[in-house]
């Protein structure tokens, strides 16, 4: 009984829940904004890079591969800190929100580029040949025959990777982006109690479980028998 009340006192203190609820909700709003922006720009940029790579211009592809490898290898936290503390020395001052958005978009783009590219490569040569033999140009073949199939194949891995990267919005806390974790740690240091952190954790679960479920739905929806 003793432990029970101590546990509630440590993680679910009602008074603190009431006091910090608005702050956490504000954090939820910020997290949703960044996540949506990252998903949109990251996936679009990844697809664009994979399409550019399909033209097989050697020098450009070297750059794309180097970019994709570097951004997949580096921990996102390192990138966030590097950009946030490095750019001002070059005279570029970006708000922390923008830094987090750009860095996470680039990381997601790097992974998506590889996934879309794998999809493009997996389309049989015969598809290209059939389309080209009817007079379709390279670009038209890519747009109407290859990409629709490649994107479909890419949906399940893209969904997984997107969920993984979006959770990294929590890294914004180290550069002062007012997202969920940032609000929670601030509240924790003022109150000296872990209740706001627990609130943050619950907020993440409530926010991301629908995303995970949606991801599973999209995966089954797009799993499709190939002829």
């Amino acid at each position, binding site marked *: 009984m003793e432990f029970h009340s101590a546990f509630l006192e440590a993680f679910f203190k009602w008074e603190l829940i009431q006091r910090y609820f608005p702050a956490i909700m504000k954090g939820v709003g910020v997290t949703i904004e960044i996540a949506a922006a990252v998903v949109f720009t990251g996936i679009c940029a990844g697809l664009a890079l994979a399409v550019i790579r399909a033209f097989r211009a050697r020098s450009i592809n070297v750059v794309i591969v180097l970019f994709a490898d570097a951004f997949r290898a580096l921990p996102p936290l390192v990138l966030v800190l590097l950009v946030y503390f490095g750019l001002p020395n070059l005279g570029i001052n970006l708000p922390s929100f923008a830094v987090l958005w750009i860095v996470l978009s680039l990381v997601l783009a790097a992974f998506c580029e590889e996934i879309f590219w794998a999809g493009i490569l997996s389309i049989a040569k*015969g598809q290209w040949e059939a*389309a080209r033999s009817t007079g379709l140009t390279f670009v038209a073949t890519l747009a109407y025959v290859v990409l629709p199939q490649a994107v479909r194949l890419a949906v399940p891995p893209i969904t997984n990777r997107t969920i993984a990267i979006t959770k990294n919005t929590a890294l914004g806390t180290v550069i002062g982006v007012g997202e969920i974790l940032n609000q929670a740690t601030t509240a924790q240091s003022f109150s000296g109690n872990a209740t706001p952190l627990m609130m943050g954790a619950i907020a993440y679960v409530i926010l991301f479980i629908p995303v995970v479920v949606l991801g599973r739905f999209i995966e089954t929806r797009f799993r499709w028998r190939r002829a």
Partner: protein
Amino acid sequence: MRLNGVVSATPPILEIRGLRKSFHHVEVLRGIDLSVAPQELVFIIGPSGSGKSTLLRCCNRLEEPTGGSIRVDGVDIMARSTDINAMRRRIGMVFQSFNLYPHMTALGNVALALVKVLRRPRKEAERVALAALDRVGLSEKAAAYPAELSGGQQQRVAIARALALEPKLMLFDEPTSALDPELVGSVLNVMRELKRGGMTMLVVSHEMRFARDAADRVIFLDHGAIVEEGPPEQIFSQPERTRTRAFIADIAR
């Protein structure tokens, strides 16, 4: 650009001169000369690796020839000034593995090039596509996806896809080799219909009975060169060359 268009009364649809093709250092075609007249059905036979498919694929530059010249309907398709995409829509091609687009219906497969290459309005393209499907006996399968069709039906849709562009020449690359035996007949019947309709065809195939009753001329290719050519009765019944005789004996088993 039609340099050769008015030289003779019936200029050939396809005119190949001294065609060579090497992959790295292996010479697959060693100087092929071949003319195909309008409405002619020319059959190419030969052992595997003899260069049959490569010869066919050079005719629309899916393979880039190493040397020689190819004229289709009087146009030098190797010339830098030739728009190969414009030429390809006049050269239909049918593949061993059908290569239908799995994400499109039969109608979508046939209509794609009509819309994107010939720039026909969608409605008109679908009408033309449906007519092409009707020619191969599959208008009732217009809404079906390739995965829902048998191999024979898929190959007929592929023929309709090429046919819809009203090509001057059709290339068939082992069109029945991937089919179950009971489905071969339906595809060959469509090809017979095309022949009857006056289509010019160059066919790589092992269907010897079909060659006997439909081909105007049979070409025996070995090691990248034409060994012997003539009407089917001659090639199949009285081949002159030893290599031809050996090959005919092999496939007749």
